[in-house]
Structure formats: structure tokens, C-alpha cells
């Protein structure tokens, strides 16, 4: 696991680092600490990370302005901050967890578990997904998302309007952020259940979900029964 800590207070950064090393143990591939946001951006550009532990107040700068560019990345972001008034907004913008200062090792472990364990989810679902678009960040309301299709290490958001947007996060990582109304119907598809009109069973144990707009999406054999029950 690759971890980047962005914290400008030396002692606090040291504490986060110690906790991370203890929690992640030998699964830790490398861990870096950056004191400034610019140094963090350089570190991210140099090598990909799995989780970013970010302080929202770096050198007097308001971290909320920096948040969107981070949550648009392929990695998960955990906010470690004293500015708890920003927590809800941070969740809405797609962070996996918000650890308020001062924190215990157990609380940080809980946050990291959401990243490391399969099926780990954010305690508060996101309301927006930040996508990179022509060098800028655009916020896509989750209410506009019809389904998400996995595409290698990234995902393709299909919106109600029919528009397609690419997101840097993998399908698994997006699922951790999306609300429970999105169900994994296939290893490559996350669908808003309310958009499903019907399930069709075909010969050869082939299943499909028909959306209200007529689109047909494949349904995994192992998930068919679970989806059918959910739709009832």
C-alpha cells in the first residue's frame, strides 16, 4: 500500500506516520510526508498512491479549494483535519473518511480499513463526483449518474442525459463512495437500482438488466438473485 501524508505540522505528521506504519504493517509499500500542497502534487505526479491523508489547512490556505482536485484522482482521500465544519462538504465531494483532530490510532485504523478492506464504504455517501476534464475539475452530481462502467483502472460514468464522463478511480473505489442506491450488477457495472425496469434471463445463464431508457446491461450470474430480490 502506498501512502502519502500531507501535513504541515511536523509533530502531527510524525504521529500520523507512526500510526500508519503500525496499522498497515508489512502491507505498506512506501509512505511519504509532504508539508505543502505543491510538494504533495509533485509526489503524486512522481508515483501513484493508494491513499492520501490530507490536512485541509496547509500554511493558512483553505484546503477545500484543493479538495476537488484530489478526490478526482485514482486514489482514496482521507481528510485529517481540525476543521470539522468542513467534514460534510468533504464527504459530499467524495472523500472516503474524515478524521477529526485530535485522533486516536483506532480512529485512523477505522478510516484506513475503509480503503483496504473489500466492500469498505464511506460513512457518508458522496453527492458529487469530481472528474478531470480538459485540465480542470468538474463536479458531476451523483443524482445525474445512471450507471458506472468499469474501464481498466478507471471508470466511465453514464449520466441520465446520455453523456459519458471518465473518472480516474476504479469501479471498486467509486463503489466505496457512492450511495447504496447503486448496486454492483456485474464486475464491470454499477447501476442505480431505481433506473432498472426489468431483469431478463436468457439461455445459457445469461442475464441482463433493462433500464428504463431501454439500455441493456449484463448482470453477473452470482449477483442475479441478489439484484432480483433488491428490485422486489
Amino acid at each position: 500500500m502506498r501512502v502519502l501524508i500531507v501535513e504541515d505540522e511536523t509533530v502531527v505528521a510524525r504521529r500520523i506516520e507512526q500510526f500508519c506504519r503500525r496499522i498497515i504493517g508489512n502491507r505498506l509499500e512506501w509512505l511519504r510526508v509532504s508539508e505543502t500542497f505543491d510538494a504533495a502534487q509533485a509526489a503524486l505526479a512522481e508515483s501513484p498512491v493508494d491513499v492520501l491523508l490530507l490536512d485541509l489547512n496547509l500554511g493558512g490556505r483553505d484546503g477545500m479549494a484543493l479538495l476537488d482536485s484530489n478526490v478526482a484522482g485514482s486514489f482514496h482521500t482521507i481528510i485529517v483535519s481540525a476543521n470539522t465544519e468542513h467534514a460534510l462538504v468533504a464527504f459530499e465531494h467524495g472523500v472516503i473518511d474524515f478524521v477529526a483532530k485530535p485522533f486516536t490510532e483506532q480512529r485512523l485504523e477505522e478510516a484506513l480499513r475503509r480503503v483496504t478492506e473489500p466492500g469498505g464504504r464511506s460513512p457518508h455517501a458522496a453527492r458529487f463526483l469530481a472528474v478531470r476534464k480538459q485540465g480542470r475539475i468538474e463536479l458531476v452530481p451523483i443524482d445525474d449518474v445512471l450507471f458506472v462502467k468499469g474501464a481498466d483502472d478507471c471508470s466511465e460514468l453514464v449520466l441520465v442525459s446520455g453523456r459519458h464522463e471518465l473518472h480516474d478511480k476504479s469501479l471498486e473505489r467509486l463503489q466505496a463512495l457512492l450511495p447504496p442506491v447503486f448496486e454492483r450488477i456485474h464486475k464491470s457495472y454499477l447501476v442505480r437500482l431505481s433506473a432498472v425496469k426489468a431483469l431478463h434471463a436468457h439461455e445459457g445463464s445469461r442475464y441482463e438488466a433493462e433500464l428504463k431508457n431501454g439500455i441493456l446491461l449484463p448482470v453477473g450470474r452470482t449477483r442475479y438473485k441478489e439484484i432480483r430480490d433488491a428490485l422486489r
Partner: protein
Amino acid sequence: MRYSCLHSLFLGLAFCASICPSIGAEQAAGDPTEYTWKPMADWYRPDLRITKLTARTVEHSELRLESGDDPRWSSPDWDDSDWVVIERNRVPLNEGVFWLRLRVRTTGPDEQVPSLINIGGGISAWDCYWDGVLISSSGTPGNSRQTEIGGMSSARVELSPEMAEAGQHVVAIRLSTFRSARAGARFAQLSFYTLPLEKFRALDMKLNLLPAMGVGAMLTIGVAVFLMWLLADRRLILALLAALCLGSALLITVVTVPIMWAYPVSWMPFQIVARISLIVIVSSLLLAAAVVHLYPSWWRSLLVVPLIVQTAIASYCLPLGINVLSPVLWRVAFISALLFVGWAVWRRREGSRLILVGIVATCGLFEWDPKHFEHSNFVFAFLPTLVGLISAIGLRLRSERLHARDTKLMAARLEIELLKKSLQPHFLMNTLTALSQVIEEKPAAAVRLIDDLAVGFRSLARFSGEKQVSIGEELALCRAHLGVMSARTDLNWSLEAEGIDASASVPPALFLTLIENGFSHQRPRKDATTFTLRAERTSDGVRYIFLSPGTITEDTARVSGGTGLRYVCARLEESFHDAWKLTQGAVAGGWETVIELREAARSGART
């Protein structure tokens, strides 16, 4: 020599300004055996402009004078064709007993016969004959001041119906003028007119009504403003305004009462002195009110200049008579007021335009009819100036009230800001997080951190509600904060103070905020961890130079004024009003903030 020149200058000024219009008065001309007839309005105080009241159905002949005393001169048939024709304001002074004669006739198809005679104008003693019949006496004319017995200033005589017939009548006046002399005057003045009775009554009402209104209005405003000064707000401008109104009421009274009622001629000099003094006092009060409202206190000394000019003119030009002197004194006052207020308008002082408009309007009304400015016109002519002054005072009171309210709000806001500093969640939570780590790593350092944190909390709690604290207390707070930051950042932060008087006062958390700004907007450098505060004496106060060490980050908020800088400026404004200045900028080694306080009493530099 200089004295003579000055005297000549004042005399010249007085003549040029005022006397010229009256020089063109009509001169008797033509064959002395022929009478020159004038409409009654010309005789009846033409300067009062009441021609409409005086239907021209009565005419007066020219006035003729003969020295000496002969009872036959009262006869209507006496031939006075060889008597000297004089103007009524050129009656000789101190020449013993002499006689004046004139004729009165009715004219026109709708003849209105004169039924009332008014005689006076300051002639000290007279006997007045109407067609040879003695109808009025005042005092006893005499050939010397000792033998003369002074009478009343004027008298009115109602003619019997037999006397007041249509046609021509002869008036003969036996008089002496030893007590008529006004200070330095060369001539006495005869006031003589005839009118139908009903017109007299209408005239009296008109002559008395406007001055009475003026006195009433000025008294009311004066008393109201005085009470406001006494009970509500003892500021100088209100006292001056009250005095101005009450003085004006007194001036109108002094001018009007002698016209309305007769008084002993021996009192006349006092009336003139009182009138001149009141003109100087009222005009000085007007100037003082304008200057006190518009200028700082040292300007008040300039008020002496117009006062000296007025006093000099009043002293040297008294012989010219009150009718000449009065307009000159007013013009000096108005010109001075226009100069003072005009300068204030140019300097854009609050309320100056209102006062200027008022004074210009008063000047215009004064020039329209200068002779009756202090009498029937005063209430209207002076009103614009009063309105301008009162409006300007009202504006000032309103802005002061708004400022006081803002100050109160700002004080409350600043107190909250200060309390927020001690409860800043970001600072507090980061400190607690660091404390958790320090406890595990270095328990002794953790104890120091807790101690510094407690000092900071105690100081901020004590400072709340204070407008100023001693620099000693402020520096203790700063050092406690730096102790906390040292524990949080693993750096050894310190504050060096140079030339500081620890007992001097500064707003609370002033330098603490500059330190916080340093941490927020600069990146620390391990080789530069010392904040420095230096005090320098200036000619009128003290200058504090504060250096925050560290690398400057590109942060526009710091230059344009973030929360911290706004707090500092608001605190300085609260404590020092306009007597402070803050400049800041990047310097070698960090960020420098210079605060200059211009009040020597608040100096924080060691002497």
C-alpha cells in the same frame, strides 16, 4: 502718520461702502421764493418703502431755516422766502434757538387730509405750530445747553377736524439741538411727517409686526437651543448658536423699540452704542459658530481679525452715524464669514456648503435692503444663515451618532474576535493532536506545552473586554503562543523585544495576531525562528517595527488584508482613531509590519 492713514482708510471704506447711496439725496433747488413740493412719501421715511401705504394726496414743501427766535415766525403768513433751504438731515447742531418752516398741502381729487403729525428724530427740544397754533412741545428750546431742557425723542399730535382741512397749511417749528448730537455727528436730523390717522395705524402695525416676529422667532430658537445645550449636549457650537439667536433678538429690540416708543433724547447715545455693540457681538457670534463648527480649535484665534476690524471701524467712523456704520460692520462680518466658510467648502468640510448657502442668501437679502436689515428684514434675511448652521450641526450630530454606534458595534465585534482567538478550533485541535504526540515522546516538553497553552488562555480571557493592555502582558502572551508553536513544529520559536517600554499600552492581541499571520502566510525556516519587535521614538509618538521570519508565500490575502490584518487595523482605530498608521511588506529575512502611533502620551519607547 500711520494712525492718520488708518483713520483715512476706515473713513474711505465706510464712505465707499455705505454713504455714497445717500449722497445723491435730493437737493433743494430753484428760486428760493418758489416752494419745491415733494410727495409725502419722500418725507415720510422713504427708506421704509411703504409708498403703497401713503397715497400721494399730501405734499410737503422744502424745509426752510432761520436762526434766531421771533414768535411771529409761527404765523402762517410770515414771508420765509429768504430763509435758508436745508435738508432734513442737515439740521444744525448747538446753534441756540432757531426756526424751521414748511408747508403741507393736500392734492388730487380724493384728498386725504393729514390728521396726525409725527415730529422727532432726535431733536432735543421743540415747539411745533400748525397754521400759527401751538400743537406740540417737547422740552424747552434754549440758547445754551444749560438753558435747554431736553424733551422726548419724538411726539405724535392728532389734529382737530378744524385744523385738518383740505388745502395748504404752514408748519413752524421752534427748536434747539444741544442734546441731539450723536457722537461726533455734525448735524441733527428732523423727522416730520403727516398722515391720515388710519394710515398711521396701518403703518404702525406693519412697522411693528415684522420686528416683533423677528424678536419672537429669535427668542424661541435661542431658548430652545440653549435648553438643548444645557440639558442634552454641552458642546460649544450649541452655546454659540443660542447666544447668536438671543443676541439677534436683543439687537432687533434695540433697533425697533425707539421707533415704536418715544424716549428721552438724552438716552440716544446709549442706544447707538448698544446697537453698534450688538452688531459686533452678533456678527462675531455668527463667525465663531461657523468657525467652531468647521475648523480645528487653533483656527478660532483668527476670529480676532474681523473683530479688530469691526471695532476699529466702529471707533473711527462713529461720526458718520449709525445708518452709515451699520452696513459697513455687517459687510465686514459677511465678507469674513464668506472667506472662512468658502475655505471650508474648498477643503470639503462636512456641512460647509450648507452654511455657505445660508450666508450667501443672507448677504443677498442684506444687500437688497441694508437699511432695514436689523429691523423689519432681520427675521427673513438671517433665517437662511440659521437654517444652514442648524442643518450643518444636525448633520454633524447624525454622523457622530452613527460613528458612536459603529464604534460600539466594533468594540463588541472585536471582543468576540478576541474570544474566538482563544477558542480557535483549528489552533486548539492541532495543539491537542501535537500534545498527544509530545506526551508520548517527551513528557517534560508536554508539560511545558500545557503550561504555555494555559498562559495563552488565561491572558486572552483576561484581555477580553479590554481596549488596551500593557505591552508586557502582550509580550507574555506572544511568548506563550510561541512556546506552543515550538512544541507543535519542533522548532525553537522566540520573540526578541528591543527598546520597548513594558508599561506602554497597546490593543490586546495586537502582536499576537502579527505572529499568527506569520505562521499562516510564511513557511518557517529552520535557521530563522526569531520574531523581533523594535520600538523607536518619533517626533510625535512611537513606531513599532515587527519582523516575522520565514519564507514569504504568494498570498494575496495578506497584502489586501485578511482577517488578522483587519483585526489589527480595527483595534488600532478603536484605540487611536486617526492617530495611527500601519505599513507592511516583504523585507530581507521575512515580513515587516510597521505601526506608527502619533500620540506622544501613548509612547511605548523607552525615553
